[in-house]
């Protein structure tokens, strides 16, 4: 049933080639992330494990360390990618990225407060993180609506950067207030999916299901909205309600991703950009393509983070920033900026 639906969507959208390429990439990066790591278990040791063989040590590293990380990476990558695509469609701004607009910042600040107050349960962290993301998202939307920032992509991003900077400073205040929490917050704020317990993953799943349903509901109305508010209303959609639903979905997704991996910038910018470049501006196609491209990018970044600095690891957030910032520059250079 789901398969037929999937196939019919594919056929109707006629963007099977890019989608299959993207799926191919996610498979490649997933296998790579199982094969390479910072430890003594090399690709040659790990390969037999994929076929049910290999040494006990290699089996342990692949199934107990790299596999959970792979799953976390997939969930985080697709959450951020979808959130970015939604936010960009909503603001009609290709630079509207959760990390740049302060949504991740709000979420990170909320979690830092929770760490300071001694919260340790995964469910609690997820809730707090999503609440923070919602606050950040609402502030951005408020700024957009009241000052006509939507018409000017740069001003929206500047406003977001300002809010992000502010939230980072406030997080720093918390770190000074309690140095004990500081090490934990400092680790977390750079972003990483190393050693995220599976209990965290289970804690975010229900909200991701809700977010997924919301995305399915808003995808078509959002596409209509991109033709203009009047057209959308003529087609029977209510723009106000769509916006609220999109904001809630973005907050759930970004909050979940931040709770899992810390604030990761630029994933929500790069992935939808690639998706749009491959499949055109239709938000439904973009969303479909984001599903494989998001995880592929995140897994690629995470594998790099492990390999570059072995036997320790680089923070994942640093790698995504190093990958993402040049893409930001490419978008700016391409001059196609205000065309969403």
């Amino acid at each position: 049933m789901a398969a037929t639906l999937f196939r019919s969507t594919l056929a109707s959208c006629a963007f099977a080639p890019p989608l299959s390429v993207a799926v191919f990439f996610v498979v490649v990066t997933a296998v790579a992330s199982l094969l390479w790591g910072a430890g003594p278990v090399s690709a040659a040791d790990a390969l037999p494990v994929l076929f049910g063989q290999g040494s006990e040590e290699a089996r342990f590293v692949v199934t107990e360390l790299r596999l959970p990380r792979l799953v976390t990476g997939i969930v985080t990558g697709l959450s951020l990618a979808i959130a970015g695509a939604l936010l960009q469609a909503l603001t009609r701004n290709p630079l509207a990225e959760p990390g740049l607009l302060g949504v991740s910042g709000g979420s990170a600040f909320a979690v830092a407060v929770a760490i300071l107050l001694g919260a340790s349960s995964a469910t609690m962290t997820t809730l707090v993180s999503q609440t923070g993301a919602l606050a950040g998202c609402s502030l951005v939307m408020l700024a957009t609506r009241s000052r006509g920032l939507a018409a000017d992509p740069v001003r929206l991003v500047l406003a977001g950067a300002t809010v992000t900077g502010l939230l980072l400073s406030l997080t720093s205040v918390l770190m000074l207030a309690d140095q004990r929490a500081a090490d934990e917050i400092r680790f977390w704020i750079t972003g990483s999916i190393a050693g995220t317990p599976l209990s965290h993953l289970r804690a975010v799943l229900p909200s991701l299901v809700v977010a997924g349903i919301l995305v399915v509901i808003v995808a078509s109305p959002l596409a209509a909205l991109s033709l203009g508010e009047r057209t959308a209303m003529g087609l029977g959609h209510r723009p106000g309600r769509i916006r609220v639903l999109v904001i809630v979905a973005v907050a759930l997704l970004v909050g979940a991703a931040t709770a899992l991996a810390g604030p990761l910038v630029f994933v929500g910018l790069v992935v939808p950009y690639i998706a749009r470049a491959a499949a055109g501006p239709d938000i439904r196609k973009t969303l479909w393509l984001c599903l494989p491209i998001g995880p592929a990018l995140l897994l690629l970044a995470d594998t790099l983070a492990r390999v570059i600095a072995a036997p320790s690891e680089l923070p994942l957030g640093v790698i995504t920033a190093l990958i993402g910032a040049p893409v930001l520059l490419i978008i700016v250079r391409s001059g196609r900026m205000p065309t969403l």
Partner: protein
Amino acid sequence: MLYPIRHQLAAPLVALLLACLYQPLLADTRTIPTAYGDVTVEGQPESIVTLYEGALDSAIAVGAQPVGAIITRGGQSVASYIEEAAGVIEIVGAPGETNLEAVIALQPDLILAAARTSEEQYQLLSRIAPTVVLAVTPYQHDTWKRELALFARALGREDRARDVIERVEQRAAEVRRQVETVIPEDQRDTALVRWMPQGPLVMAEGLFSATVLASAGFEVDDAGLVSEGRPHSQPLSQENLSLMDRNWIFLATLNEDGREALEAARQAPAFKRLVANESGRILPVDGTLWTSASGPLAALAILDEIEAALK
């Protein structure tokens, strides 16, 4: 029978002569070699400010009572192991961030500062009171002894320093005997680590608490993961946890509640596989004492914890 008479006469004479010749020495003026040249201190300073945890520890150990100190890393006051001995003490800043005005308000006549005090900071401090910034090579097995000797000299309590060192050595030998009876020789390998959410930091084998562990008969080994002159390694990837797989692991925590940190560490699948975890030989210890403090009192406190762990 002339000898006793001559002796009776000679003793006061010699004393008088010495007193005349070495008058400044008797008034007890001492020169201490420091990172910023020789510093001269007279008499036994009364009002002492310590800007380094090792200096606070050394000063109290030789019987001085500092009036001001900095907070321990991660705490709100001095480290808890020394809190009682320190008594009422003013806080004059955090490590690396001294509030000079708070130092002045205490009107110290001696300041004992950390080795990494910058020259600019030193210039200001030395105008408040004679300031001792030691130039002792860090992370050596006898770093704390050499620091203690120099701090004690500055404090005019050099004689006490020898007693203190002897006391620590005796105590270490005592604990060592117990270690040697309880633990077979091939099972005394140990790692000292700090647990971070992304993986462990291996502490240097030259770190103060690691040298105390070694003096108590453990074989501490950082597996070459810590580069020269560093207190600890970079956080290891969890895939490399086997590099710190030893019979004994002392798990220094960032806060004083070690058990919580141990529980957090045990959630990591790789941690469960460690030899020491299976045999219950992972011991959570107070990080402010084990990774931040140094000095003879800290050594005694650490030895107490080691002794308790054997039971």
